[in-house]
């Protein structure tokens, strides 16, 4: 057996679509946060506070495990064309100061001849990587564990044969083993600095101190024991979800992630040696809204560029309805797929679809700001307490609804030309100093005479207004109308 192992040190960032060297991904456990990707002068494992002290401009993002798994899986599906079986693994010690490792193996013993030699094979793989763009380190060895360790080295030479493997591994530091930190410290504490030192120890003595499991791990590492694992087989359909960093509104900004998706689709199609006849691109918006774009091709093909161009043209003609949070690309209609064409489209008559369509039509006709859902927030400030949200949103209902409020609240208070006729006692509200929305007002109910009413656009005669006197600028304002 000959294993090619790829490790992807920047995968957490790539999984979230972040390329800028100032963007780092962090993992956390209770109060501790540390880096799991590298950045300028900051190595993975460094505490976030220390990294920020060194480079205050760093932007820290928490890791998204699902995105990482999705990307690694997609890469596994891609590499399937180069050999089989394919295995993947995320080595995640989850201890402060340690970064996870994202590993992929493909058995190339059989494929070497197929691709015309190892060099040709590696060249092809590297070309693909250049297109797909993840940062990868490669190593080739007779065992999976061995190959994984060798990716940490800076030595590209492949290792053939178990003896050569043992020699190479012996020189590596024992601190590189993917074991819990406590055990690595223990190894260090008895002076076992190199993996070779471990190999030389009497087996029983080692097992007694570090456990039989570790002994077996070492055996698997140097090929004394087999290392079975579930193989990854790409699914019959392509489904790739990509979560965007933040909400993206402009079509331009969607193109980049879209290009990546189409490239992955292309790689997948090639690895399966199939063509696609139609695809579906779903946009996920806030509040679990989705919109769908369907494309049909004249003939089945697997040209990523063609797919991308078609999508882009469609987008330029019809931009997505709202800011997009995630993309989902589905290719289920394949040329040689045995599934047939019948059930590719979901039943288009579900009510959620209808509602979305209705909302979209209304929004298109009336303009986006005309449609909103009222939502209650817990805040003493009237304008914050009753907020507007996107249609269909439901905010958290506050526990206590303290005061009576007019039904019709103006979005912004309207200054009054002169002091109105007020009745009754004031309600004094002083709040909001913490977010630049500090207000200090005395609210009253006032009878609006006819002339004052029309000046401020009252709805009818003798309407009762909700007015206030602002302490900060000493003026009177109108804020709403009682029903």
């Amino acid at each position, binding site marked *: 057996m000959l294993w090619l192992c790829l490790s992807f040190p920047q995968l957490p960032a790539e999984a979230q679509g972040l390329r800028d060297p100032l963007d780092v991904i962090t993992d956390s456990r209770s109060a501790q946060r540390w880096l799991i990707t590298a950045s300028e002068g900051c190595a993975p494992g460094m505490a976030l506070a220390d990294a920020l002290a060194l480079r205050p401009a760093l932007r820290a993002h928490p890791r998204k495990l699902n995105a990482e798994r999705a990307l690694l899986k997609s890469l596994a599906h891609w590499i399937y064309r180069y050999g089989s079986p394919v295995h993947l693994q995320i080595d995640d010690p989850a201890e402060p100061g340690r970064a996870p490792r994202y590993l992929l193996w493909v058995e190339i013993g059989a494929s070497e001849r197929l691709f015309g030699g190892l060099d040709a094979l590696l060249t092809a793989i590297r070309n693909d990587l250049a297109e797909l763009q993840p940062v990868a380190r490669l190593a080739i060895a007779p065992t999976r564990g061995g190959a994984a360790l060798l990716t940490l080295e800076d030595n590209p030479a492949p290792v053939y044969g178990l003896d050569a493997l043992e020699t190479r591994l012996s020189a590596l530091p024992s601190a590189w083993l993917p074991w819990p930190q406590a055990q690595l410290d223990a190894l260090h504490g*008895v002076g076992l600095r190199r993996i070779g030192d471990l190999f030389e120890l*009497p087996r029983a003595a080692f097992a007694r101190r570090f456990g039989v499991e570790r002994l077996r791990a070492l055996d698997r590492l140097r090929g004394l024991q087999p290392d079975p694992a579930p193989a990854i087989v790409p699914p019959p359909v392509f489904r790739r979800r990509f979560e965007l960093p933040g909400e993206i509104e402009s079509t331009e900004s969607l193109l980049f992630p879209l290009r990546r998706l189409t490239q992955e689709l292309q790689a997948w199609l090639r690895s399966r040696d199939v063509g696609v006849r139609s695809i579906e691109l779903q946009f996920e918006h806030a509040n679990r809204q989705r919109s769908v774009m369907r494309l049909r091709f004249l003939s089945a093909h697997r040209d990523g560029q063609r797919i991308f161009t078609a999508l882009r043209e469609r987008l330029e003609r019809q931009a997505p309805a709202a800011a997009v949070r995630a993309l989902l690309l589905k290719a289920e209609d394949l040329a040689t797929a045995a599934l047939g064409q019948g059930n590719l489209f979901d039943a288009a008559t579900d009510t959620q679809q209808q509602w979305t369509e209705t909302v979209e039509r209304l929004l298109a006709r009336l303009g986006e700001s005309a449609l909103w859902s009222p939502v209650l927030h817990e805040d003493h400030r009237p304008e914050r307490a009753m907020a507007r949200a996107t249609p269909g949103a439901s905010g958290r209902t506050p526990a206590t609804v303290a005061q009576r409020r007019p039904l019709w609240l103006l979005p912004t208070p309207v200054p009054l030309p002169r002091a109105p006729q007020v009745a009754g006692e004031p309600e*004094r509200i002083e709040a909001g100093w913490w977010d630049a929305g500090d207000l200090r007002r005395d609210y009253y109910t006032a009878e609006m005479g006819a002339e004052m009413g029309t000046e401020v656009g009252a709805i009818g005669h003798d309407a009762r207004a909700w007015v206030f006197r602002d302490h900060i600028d000493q003026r009177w304002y109108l804020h709403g109308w009682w029903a």
Partner: protein
Amino acid sequence: MYAELHALSAFSFQRGASLPPELVERAAELGYRALALTDECSMAGAVRAWQAGRDCGLPVIAGSEFTLHDGPKLVLLAETQRGYAGICGAITRGRRAAIKGRYNLQRRDLDAPIPEVCALWIPRGPGDVEELAWLRERYAGRLWIAVELHRDGRDAEQLQRLQALSQRFAVPRVASGDVHMHVRARRALQDVLTALRHHQPVARCGHRLFANGERHLRTLQDLQALYPPALLRETLHIAERCAFRLGTLKYDYPREIVPAGHTLQSWLRALVEQHIPERWPQGCPPEVRALIEKELTLITQKRYEAFFLTVYDIVLYARKQNILCQGRGSAANSVVCYTLGITAVDPGFTDLLFERFVSNERDEPPDIDVDFEHERREEVIQYVYDKYGRERAAIAATVIRYRPRSALRDVGRALDISAEVIDRVAKSLAWWDDPDGLPERLRSIGVDPKARAIRLWLRLARDLLEFPRHLSQHVGGFVISDAPLSELVPVENAAMPDRTIIQWDKDDLEALGLLKVDVLALGMLSALRRTFEHLRTFDGTALDLQRIPTDDAATYAMIGRAETLGVFQIESRAQMSMLPRLRPENLYDLTVQVAIVRPGPIEGDMVHPYLRRRAGLEAVDYPPRLKSVLGRTYGVPIFQEQVMRIAMVAAGFSADEADQVRRSMAAWKRSGGLEKFERKLKDGMAARGYDADFAERIYKQILGFGSYGFPESHAASFALLAYASAWLKCHHPAAFLCGLINSQPMGFYPVSMLVGEARRLGVKVGAVDVRASHWDCALVPDRQQRPAIRLGLRLVSGFNVHAGLRLADARRTRPFDSVEDLARRTQLNARELEALAAADALRGLAGHRYHARWQTRGHARLDGLLQDAALPDDPVQLTTPAEGEEILADYRSTGLSLRRHPSALLRERLERHHVVPNAQLQQIDNGQPVRVAGIVMFRQRPGTAKGTMFMTLEDDTGIVNLIIWPRLIERQRDIIVGAGFVLVRGKLQREQGVTHVLAEAFADRSHWLAGLPHLSRDFR
């Protein structure tokens, strides 16, 4: 006119946003007739409020607010002392029934109405009718409905509803404010406190914040606009009924200290007469007898006998248990205390100023502080509790206040500032930072001080500074009374189990004239006792404090050479640099030494004149009339009493006024009042014929002295201990240093330097070894039968005393022959074995650390039948650790190494950098440029040094003291504050035999010794 009857201060933790004096002063300003401070289930702020009220002429009513678990929210106000005692009892009950910081009161606790209080019921809405009914059953005739209007738009509605209730139940109404702050401007801070209480940022608190800032002390105009006049008038009616004032509190001292047939007075005299022959075997000299009579008369007059007898009883108990103790502070001014054995300063030795201790005019109780061995102080505390009972004895509280770091953290959390930013800012605050330098600090770590959120954060953190956060147990101040304490002041649970504290701190007690006995801890007393024990065990030498020979020339010579590492009070860097100049030759010189290296004399510029005059370099001049005061100290005032006496003799101050100067100096400096004092002093001196120059000099000296000078008697008490420890170090260094190490933590120096000092003195030190070490370090004979020190298991990080005892026990039966044998017989767990391996303590059984760890890790614990079975194990070949690794591992495990110093590993490298070994600095001339290096052992930034910092570096040859000026600190702050190992370029400075290096540039080389733990001790 109006009296506010419901007000909370910051002592209602996380509710009130103003300090008691702020509330009182504001109420007075507004023209209120009276103010009631009603903190929630607490009287912690009551004394401060009463004091402020006394100072500005506003009557302050004592009371408290309660929210019962199952019932009404109410305020109780004390009409008389009896009512006050009842309220304190209720608070105590509620606090004792809950964990620290909380209270738990149910209706059944207040079922029996408390007599002589006025009750205000606070309506809350649901359940009002039922609550009012319950209260009326118990407090009819002294119950009111509190009408609290805050302009929430429903005031009219509220007024009507409560009027209906009032009529229905025939309970009168009264206006009150639910005051949470003294001015509206504290609104933001009050919101922050609310946010902290709910563990949420302010922005997410929503309706839990008050809707407006009305809950402050409002103007009379405002109140009149809001409330019907009858309700306002009712406040005056209640205020008149509540005539109790805190200042009239009376209490009695426990009576059982006097045996049958005696009165307090007669018993005190009997004891004094009994002990006189012990102190003066040749008979009592007439002047001493005169002093005793004078003191006893005064004591009787002020009725302090019980106090002295209580302290005497405690000291007697300690002596019987062989616990070393000694009185200190102003009590050392008393001959009676000396006679009774409470203090150790012979009255013939200094000029005792009894008035400093007890004065006829002053109404304050004396302060007797007694130091006990720090490790056995607990026994003494337990004795007091046992003797007087938990009801009648309790420890005073300490108010823990917000400091810069905690204020920034809490306010930052409330403002939802990211945890990283808070962390960065809080961490970068070196311990001396003041809030004003903060904007600069922020810029340098990438935070914009102009950003709105940041400005808000800083402003509110500054407001929060010095606010009380919670109460904690005082170090050892006991209050003991005859009647249950809870009638005097509420008692609550401390954090320690089985400990209770009163809600007042020592300032409060002093203000009210309550007697407090300070049971303090002094590490040196433990160290001394241990030294005596070591000597006794080693070769039977029987020594104690009284039997140490006085006036030993060798000891004073050693002191003069500043070889005082480990010696009590004269071991710090500052002290050591003074010793070669002052060269004490007798106990009095030592007394001066102890007192002179303190902020007071330094700031008052007393030190240099003293030194020059003593050396004969300057004429000793002072007005002849002041000879009795200044004669002993060459005309320079060094001690606090001298300053007091000058004011009395030269400027005509009374003893009381002179004492007032001492206490108020700090406050005057902060907020004004100095001019009055200056005028009085100078006028008084002019009237008595002193010339203006002299008066100015004296004034400046007193000013600089402030309140930081030592009393002479206190310095004398400490000098006795300093001499004793120096004598022991000089003549029995092994025993002394062994005792010192066993008494850690204490003193100025870390264990590594104490061990270093022992070796420098030729004492052999043996490493921690499971074959020979006990828990404590032990004095053992070396090969030449001289005393040597075997380091103890207490130094091993991660090891505990129980494991240590098991180990010593198992070893006593039979020595260990292998790690396996040790592990099995001692039943140590994996962690404990690992600690021993890490400390290299298994070397005798297993070889070096790697082998030791290999073996401890291989130990398998088998039970039952297999208990004694031997498990086969293959031998292994492990590499040998490098020397550097061993040394660093030593430091990590025990804080020291008996191998080479880490610097020794770097010698070649340092030479290439032209670094001079510290021991060779003596050969460099004054003013020469020089490079030094070492591990940072001390960082010190005393307040008197105007921002200059002192740092001590240690290398394999010795230490060097660096002087770092503020500008350099700002430029290289991170290195100076945080580095472990540094290279320094600077200039050598030698003055009167004392060598320093003036630092010019630092280079951080901590990575050369990666893995060295943080060793530096950082001081003010």
